[in-house]
């Protein structure tokens, strides 16, 4: 099945589930909890009534207002990260029923249509847990600094317009620019492993999102001035050649960003860059 067919199949399944959703039901949330770094994890279950249009966030709010587990034990409200609740800020990413995604757009009717259905929530496994479902994604943002993901403008004073651009080229950049740094591509990547020590972040795999951002800025009229620096950063250990071509990243990206295309483009770019450097005698 192609990616597109798989997506369509997914959407069909979810639509079918929505149709059989039972009104007035309760579902069980099984949540992996952890009190803080270095503390052991445990599972807690909560029975939650399903409101109309309920999603994982609204359910977590109900749990927060009445944190009592299915066996009647009083516990603390679950901690989780969230922001816009419109799938555009990237904050509320977690692993739901084994698959990484944003929790705000996860409708209960699609995932648990029947009375007593179970939804499991786990924190992303590639980042250190702060508490419960909240993880520390500093490394993800650090990677953007590593590839100099910005346009080196002269300053913020008025100097006229930027470079002209064809609509096709704008559409291509726009698609890459929708990346909300959520980390789905990293959670799904077999090459991206958990790394708690910040000193090692510059030599461990940078991840699909950052490679794609490097491509975005290489494609900008002024941004490409730093192309060489970006290729240098992506040529060494943890660079683009660490990609194992599993192609999981593109399957889980909520914004449909062509990540594997970006990896291909940047891979070719680094090769050409290396050859050029060789003939220039710069190692």
């Amino acid at each position, binding site marked *: 099945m192609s990616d597109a067919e798989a997506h369509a199949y997914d959407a069909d399944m979810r*639509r079918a589930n*929505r149709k059989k959703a039972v009104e007035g039901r309760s579902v069980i949330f099984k949540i992996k909890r952890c*009190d*803080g770094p270095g503390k052991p994890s445990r599972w807690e279950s909560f029975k939650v009534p399903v*409101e109309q*249009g*309920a*999603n994982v966030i*609204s359910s977590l*709010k109900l749990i*927060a*207002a*009445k*944190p009592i587990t299915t066996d009647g034990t009083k516990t*603390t*409200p679950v*901690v989780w990260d*969230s*922001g*816009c*609740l*419109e*799938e*555009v*800020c*990237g*904050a509320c990413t977690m692993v739901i029923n084994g698959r990484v995604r944003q929790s*705000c757009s996860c*409708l209960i009717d*699609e995932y648990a249509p029947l009375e007593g259905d179970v939804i499991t929530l786990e924190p992303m496994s590639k980042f250190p847990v702060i*508490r419960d479902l*909240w993880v*520390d994604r500093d490394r993800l*943002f650090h990677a*953007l*600094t590593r590839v*100099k993901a*910005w*346009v*080196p*403008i002269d*300053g*913020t004073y*008025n*100097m*006229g*317009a*930027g470079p*002209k*651009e*064809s*609509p096709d*080229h*704008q559409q291509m*950049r*726009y698609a890459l*620019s*929708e990346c*909300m740094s959520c980390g789905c591509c990293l959670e799904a990547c077999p090459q991206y492993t958990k790394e708690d020590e910040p000193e090692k972040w510059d030599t461990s795999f940078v991840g699909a999102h950052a490679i794609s951002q490097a491509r975005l800025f290489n494609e900008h009229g*002024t941004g490409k001035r730093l192309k060489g620096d970006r290729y240098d950063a992506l040529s060494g250990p943890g660079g683009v050649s660490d990609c194992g071509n599993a192609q999981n990243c593109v399957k889980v990206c909520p914004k449909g960003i062509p990540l594997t295309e970006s990896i291909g483009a940047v891979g070719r770019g680094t090769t050409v860059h290396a050859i050029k450097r060789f003939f220039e005698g710069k190692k």
Partner: protein
Amino acid sequence: MADEKRVIVVGGGLAGLAASVRVAEAGVPVDLFSMVPVKRSHSVCAQGGINACNEVARQQGYSEYQHFDETLIGGDFLNDQHPVLEMANWAPKIIDLLDRMGVPFNRSSEGFRDLRLFGGSLFKRTHFAGATTGQQLLYALDEQTRRFAAEGKVNKMEFWEFLWPITEGEGEDKRCVGIVAQDMRTMQIRSFRADAVVMATGGCGLVFGKSTNSIICTGGAASRCYQAGAWYGNPEMIQVHPTAIPGADKCRLMSESARGEGGRVWVPKKKGDTRRPTDIPENERYYILEERYPKYGNLVPRDIATREIFDVCVNEGMGINGTNQVYLDLTHRDPEYLTQKLGGIMDIYEKFVGDDPRYTPMRIFPAVHYSMGGLWTTYTPGDYQPDSPLGEHKPGNPIPIDAQPGHGLTIGAHNNAMTNISGLYAFGEVNFAYHGATRLGANALLSCIFDGLCNGVSVVNYVREGVDTPASEIPQTVYDQAEKSEQEKHDKIMGSVNTGKGDQSLNPYQIANELGEEMNAASTVVKTGPRLEKCLAKLDELWDRYNRMELGDGAMWTNQSLSFARSVGDMIILGEAIAKAGLLREESRGSHYRTDFPERDDEKFWKASVAKFNSETNRSDIEFMPVKAGLVKLRPRNYGKVDSGTNKEKIPPKPVAEAKA
């Protein structure tokens, strides 16, 4: 000589990032505090675009001055006029800068920036990047901030919550010299020194429970400044957007462009009709806006559309199946056309509701969207000072003043966008100055970035020239005292854990729910004196319960319940100012509509309501202060009045250019 002076910016949305970049660029180090990684700030949610005069519109008779004039009539003349003039004049240059930063603005076939039509103007003056303009602008500024952070000029303090502004001196001499903040992970509370503090903390949608805002938009930071003595201007001016998707957790915005592309708003004529919308024949549908406003139909401006939808559901009980929802119907349009023109918002609806709006009418209801009010700020006017204020500006007429910087504001004056406390600034949505009683679409992104870029210069000048004793030389006791006071408040809330018997009415989440319901019912679309009085009594009761609140989480690590509980108190305090200013403003103006005072009353109320916190009573004292005007004359905002049966309301104000069309 080493420049030891520093600036703190609180909030990493468009205003905070623009300010950080501008101040750091001038060589003053910035500490940037945010509750979230700045790339996740609420600015990401803006959809439509950003307004600016442009060459195409200019050749058709448009001008920066016309943009200024439109913004004032849109705001029903409650805006401070000088900063609006300066903002409109800067707008085209701001677009150029964003373009240079790499924002993927949509392009014409020749490669120029594309433009779209937006409410409030005859001219295409709105620049956009797909259906996620706010996200794209935020990312561009986030990238520039990251660059400055890599160079050590901006120090990002993410996951730190602002608790209190630290001030020194009293009365006229009172000035802000730092902040107290808390690490949301370790729960450490500590003070930070700064020679100036910029608040760029956005709006307060969560005071109303469910809104179109992100979950961080409690208004908590603004409320804390207000409690520390900063004035709060026009708190009652809250924009309610007519079309949002009601949800279990929030209301998601459904852009006005849906109606622009032919969307029709209707309910079944028969109350409680349970048939599917597509099964209800044409003659059994009540097209609310088209029948009540034959002239403007579904394209009446935001405030009137909101009031009518509200009226049909709440007063007449004709909402779909008795709920507070109406249909926004696009199913008569070609699905492919809809995908092309409205793809982004079609997808949001399908994703969150589950129905495809190309085939099933959307179910929508108005939702709280934007706070025109905010921290009160002042400024030094620029060199444009007409002998007497001018009347309406018509397209193509000679413009009274060119668009060079410095006509509206004196650029770099220390007090531009400064609150009544020296050294404490308010930028972006939390600044009350720009939008008066209603904000025009696509002006919000502009005011945020304008504040950061233009008034960022004022911050730099103030710390360099206006500060006698640098914060680094202020006695440590000032900071220790502030830190201690916040620690005590924190400990008091933590002390409430498990003290009670699990009384649900003392649960902070329960108190917040009741606050949201009450504020929504009393102080949004339609207000009356008696209802607002009842609301104030309810807020008293909630305040009492808040002070006996029982926290559900005693953890000393990453305690989100504590952070939320603390903001509930701040929201009640802000809610009181919103309701009381609404009660005292006995007129209707822009978004503020009182059925017991349905007319605009310029004699009494062409004034800003200014809330000052009374720490004895924990309530607001409201004063009415003259609007800072002098550039443009007041004029009525009621064109093309149509009497249609039961509706006694005047036709709302159409922006000048459009009404003349």
